[in-house]
C-alpha cells in the first residue's frame, strides 16, 4: 500500500501546545503547584511559551470562544474567561523568536478586512510566525453576543467561511513585495502598479481593498482548521496548512488522515503540504505508576456536581452543561511509553504530530518538554534545532507566490475623488 509519506524520507513530527492557562483538565487549576490565576498573567504565558520554544515546538495554540457562562467554572474554567487571543499572541511574539503563534478567530463574527489586518500585522510583529486557527463556531450562544437572531446552520457558516478565506487571502496579497518604493530622490513612495484593489464582490462580501498592511512576511499566514463534517474536511483539505483533528483511536485517526490527504490531493496539494495533528491529552512522569497517580489525583479534584451557580438560571444551549462531564484518561505513561505511542501513530500515518493538551500548567508542559521531547529527538523523529525562523519554515512550506503578481490587470489604488 502506498504511503502518503513515501517520497518524504525526512518527515518529522510537528507539535503544538494547546495553551489553557489552568490546564486542559477541568481540575487542573487545583493540582498542587499548578497555576490557578495564570490566565491574565502575561509574563507567565510568555514563560510557558518559552518552555515549549526551548523544546522546539512548532507552535503555541491560543483557543477562543465568543461567549461564556459561569457554569463553565466546573467543566471548563480555562475557557470561561481569558485574554483575547490576538492580544495574547502579540504579547507572546514580543517575548519569543521562533515558535509559531496560532490565534483562533471565527469568521462568522468577524469582518474579512479586520481579520486580514490583525493576522497580517501579527505576522509582521512576529517576523513570520503568525497563524490563524479558523473555527466556524461551536457555540450557538455566541449569536446572542453579536446582535444576531440565531446561530447560522453549518452550510451557511461554511459558505461564509469559504468566501471569507478567499477574500482574506486576496487582501494579504494586495501589496506585492516591492510595492513600497520609498524613493527619497524622486519622492515616489509607492509603485502603484504593484498595489491591487481586490475588488471582491461576492455573495456575502464587497471589499474594495487594498489592505492597509503590507504583505505578511509569510506571504500567506499559516491556516489551521479542525472539524469532522464534510464541509469542514473540504475547507481544511483545500485551505489549511495544519489540521487539528480529534482522532479518538488509531483506526479512526488513520481513516481521517487518509481522507484529508486524499481530499487535499484532489485540490492539487501534496500530502506533505498539510500536517494533521490530533489532540494528545497526555500525562507523563518518570514512571508509569507516578503518571497514573497524577491523573488519579486530578480526577479526585474534579468538582463532582455540575450545578448552576446560585443566582444563575441555566439556559438552553449554555456552555458547560454537557461538556466534559467526565474526561477520558488520555495517554498516561512514562517517557518511553508515550514516545512509543507517538511514534506508532506517526509511522502508521495516523498523524503528522500532535497538539499537546497539558492537564495542568506549568507542570504538565514542563514534563512533556523535559521527558518526552528528548526521547523523540533521540529517535530522530523530532528536530533538535529549528531550521528556520518562520512558522512556514517549521512546516517546510515555501512562501506562496502572490496571487496578483504578474497579473496584467492593472488595478491601482483608488484616489480619493471627493472628501
Amino acid at each position, binding site marked *: 500500500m502506498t504511503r502518503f509519506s513515501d517520497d518524504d524520507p525526512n518527515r518529522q513530527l510537528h507539535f503544538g501546545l494547546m495553551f489553557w492557562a489552568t490546564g486542559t483538565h477541568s481540575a487542573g*487549576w487545583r493540582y498542587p503547584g499548578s497555576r*490557578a*490565576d495564570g490566565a*491574565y498573567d*502575561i509574563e507567565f504565558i510568555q514563560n510557558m511559551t518559552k518552555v515549549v520554544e526551548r523544546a522546539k515546538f512548532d507552535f503555541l495554540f491560543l483557543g477562543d470562544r*465568543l*461567549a*461564556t*457562562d*459561569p457554569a463553565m467554572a466546573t467543566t471548563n474554567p480555562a475557557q470561561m*474567561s481569558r*485574554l*483575547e487571543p490576538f*492580544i*495574547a*499572541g*502579540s*504579547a507572546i511574539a*514580543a*517575548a519569543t523568536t521562533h515558535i509559531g503563534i496560532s490565534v483562533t478567530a471565527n469568521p462568522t463574527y*468577524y*469582518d474579512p*478586512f479586520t481579520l486580514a*489586518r*490583525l493576522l497580517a*500585522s501579527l505576522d*509582521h*510583529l512576529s517576523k513570520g510566525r503568525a497563524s490563524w486557527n479558523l473555527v466556524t463556531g461551536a457555540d450557538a450562544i455566541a449569536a*446572542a*453576543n453579536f*446582535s444576531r437572531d440565531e446561530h447560522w446552520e453549518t452550510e451557511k457558516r461554511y459558505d461564509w467561511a469559504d468566501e471569507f478565506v478567499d477574500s482574506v487571502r486576496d487582501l494579504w496579497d494586495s501589496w506585492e513585495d516591492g510595492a*513600497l518604493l*520609498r524613493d*527619497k530622490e524622486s*519622492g515616489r*513612495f*509607492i509603485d502603484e502598479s504593484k*498595489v491591487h484593489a481586490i475588488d471582491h464582490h461576492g455573495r*456575502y462580501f464587497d*471589499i*474594495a481593498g*487594498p*489592505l*492597509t*498592511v*503590507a504583505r505578511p512576511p509569510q506571504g500567506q499566514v499559516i491556516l489551521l482548521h479542525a472539524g469532522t463534517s464534510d464541509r469542514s474536511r473540504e475547507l481544511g483539505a483545500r485551505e489549511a496548512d495544519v489540521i487539528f483533528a480529534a482522532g479518538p483511536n488509531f483506526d479512526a485517526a488513520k481513516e481521517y488522515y487518509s481522507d484529508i490527504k486524499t481530499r487535499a490531493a484532489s485540490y492539487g496539494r501534496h500530502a506533505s503540504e498539510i500536517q494533521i495533528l490530533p489532540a494528545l491529552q497526555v500525562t507523563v512522569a518518570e514512571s508509569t505508576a507516578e503518571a497514573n497517580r497524577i491523573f488519579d489525583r486530578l480526577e479526585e*479534584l474534579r468538582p463532582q456536581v455540575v450545578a*448552576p*451557580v*446560585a*443566582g*444563575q*438560571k441555566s*439556559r438552553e444551549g449554555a456552555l458547560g452543561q454537557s461538556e466534559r462531564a467526565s474526561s477520558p484518561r488520555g495517554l498516561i505513561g512514562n517517557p518511553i511509553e508515550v514516545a512509543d505511542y507517538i511514534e506508532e501513530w506517526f509511522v502508521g500515518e495516523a498523524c503528522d504530530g500532535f497538539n499537546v493538551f497539558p492537564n495542568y500548567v506549568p507542570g504538565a508542559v514542563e514534563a512533556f518538554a523535559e521527558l518526552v521531547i528528548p526521547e523523540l529527538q533521540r529517535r530522530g523523529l523530532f528536530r533538535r534545532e529549528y531550521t528556520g525562523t518562520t512558522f512556514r519554515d517549521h512546516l517546510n512550506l515555501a512562501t506562496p507566490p502572490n496571487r496578483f503578481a504578474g497579473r496584467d490587470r492593472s488595478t491601482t*489604488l*483608488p*484616489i*480619493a*475623488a471627493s*472628501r
Partner: protein
Amino acid sequence: MTVSKKETNISDAKKNSSGESPRRALHLGYMYWSNGTHPAGWRYPGAEHSRAFDVDHFVGLAQRAEAAKFDFFFFGDRLATGAEYGYTNTSVIARLEPFTTAAYLATLTKTIGIVVTANPTYYEPFNLARLTASLDHVTKGRASWNVVTGADPRAAQNYSRLEHGDANFRYDRAEEFIDLVRSLWDSWEDDAFIRNKETGEFVDGSKIHAVNHDGKTFQVKGPLNVARSPQGHPVILHAGSSERSRQFAAREADVAFAGVATLTQGRQYATEIRCRATESGRDPDEISILPGLTPLVGATLAEAREIYDELNSLTILDEDVRFGGREPSAWTRGAEGLHGSSEGVPLGYRNLGSLSQRLGLDVTEESIDAVVPLEIEGRLAPAGSQLVITATQRTGRTVGLNLTWRDVLYTYVVGGHVVVGGPTEIADYIESWHAAGAADGFIIQSAFLDEQFDAFIDLVVPELRRRGLFRSEYEGSTFREHLGLTRPQSRFTLDQGIEVSS
C-alpha cells in the same frame, strides 16, 4: 460663558501668597507616525522612511518616550488607504494594525499609557470590549481606546457597506456602542474570581453579570469572557470638532482633542468641552484637552527655520503650479479633520489656484516667488489671513519684505499644527497654551524621525521641567493615574438593583 476651572485655578494661584502655582499638570502624549507628519518628512536627509513594519522602531521610540515620562504613546488607524497618501501622509499608506502593535509593546514598556485607535462603525462591541480589556490586562492598566467614527469614508467599501453613514448615524452607533462596551467591561466584578484550590470554588457566579443590552443597533447578552481589567475602564480618547463629536467627547472622553491650530481656536474648544462636560454632570477637570502639535525643533530658532524651509523644498508641488491638474473646488477638508489636521493637501491641489480658494483672493497671476505685498491686507478671507500669519510665524519672514507666495503655498500644503523654534520658543508656545486654558498639554508628533523626536525629548522636555511644567517621575503606574483619574467602580457593583443573571 462659564470659565473653565483651570482658569479659575490660575487666577487663584495669582492670589496665592506662597507664589506657588497649583496649575494643572501638563500632559504629553506621543503620536507615532513612522515617517513623521510633514508630507516630505520621509525625504529629509537621514530621516526614517522604511520602518513602518520594523518592530524595533516603534518599540525604541516608545521606550524613549517612557524614559521621558510621557503620559502615553499613541497609535492611529485608518480602515482604507489611497494613492494620494503617497504624497500627503506616507505613514498611513500601509502600517501595522494597532491592537496587535500595542500588545506587542505591552511587556516591553512598564509605565507609559498605550493608545489604540478603533472605529466603532466597523467593529462589533463584543470584539472591541475583549480587545481593549485584554490590552489593559497585558499592560497592567495602561490601555486606552481612541474612539474615531471614521476619518476615511472609503472604509465602507472595505466593509461591504453601501455607504459610510452620516455623522448622526455614526455617532448614534458610537454612543450606544461605548455604553455597551462599558457594561461589558464591568460584567465581571473585580472579586468575581475565588480560585480556592481547597474548596474547588473557581468563581462567584453572583458577581458575573449578563448585560442584556437590547438597543437600537445592538443586542448583546454578555457577560464578557474577559475579567474586569486593571483600570476598570481603559482611558477614552476622542477627537473632532463637529457638534456630535464635541458632545461625545464631553460625555465620554478622558482625553479630548481637535484639529485646532490657533490659540483662539484652542481656547474655544477647551472651554466648550468643559462647559458641555459640566452640563453632562461630569467634573470638567476630569477631561484633559490635548491638541495635536508638531514642534519643529532646532537647537536655535534659526536652525529650526532652516529645517522647515528644507522640508518644504522637498515637498512636491503640482507641475502646473498655477492651476494644477484638477478643479480646486472639489477639494474640501473633512469637517472632522483628525489628528490636528496634520494631513497635507494632495497633489492636484498644490497650486496657486487652490491657494486662492483658501485665501479668498485670486493669486493665480502672481509669480510664485514674488514677495507677498502689503496690499493684501484687508482683502483676504479670515482663513486666508490666518494662513498668511501662520506662514510668517513658521518662516520668520515678513509680508511686504521677504515672505513669498511659495512660503504661503507650502504652509497651505503642509497644513497641521506646527510650531517652529528652538527649545525656548517651543516651550514658550506650550506654556502659553497651557496658561491660557487652551490645552492641558499636547499630543506631540514629529515632522520626521528620529531626529525631531530626539530634539523634542533632549531639548524641549528638559526646558519644560526647568519651568516646573512637566513631571520628572511618574507618580503612578496606570494611564488613569498619569491623568489623575480614579478607577471607576463597576456599574453592577454600584447598582445592585440591576437584574444580574441571565
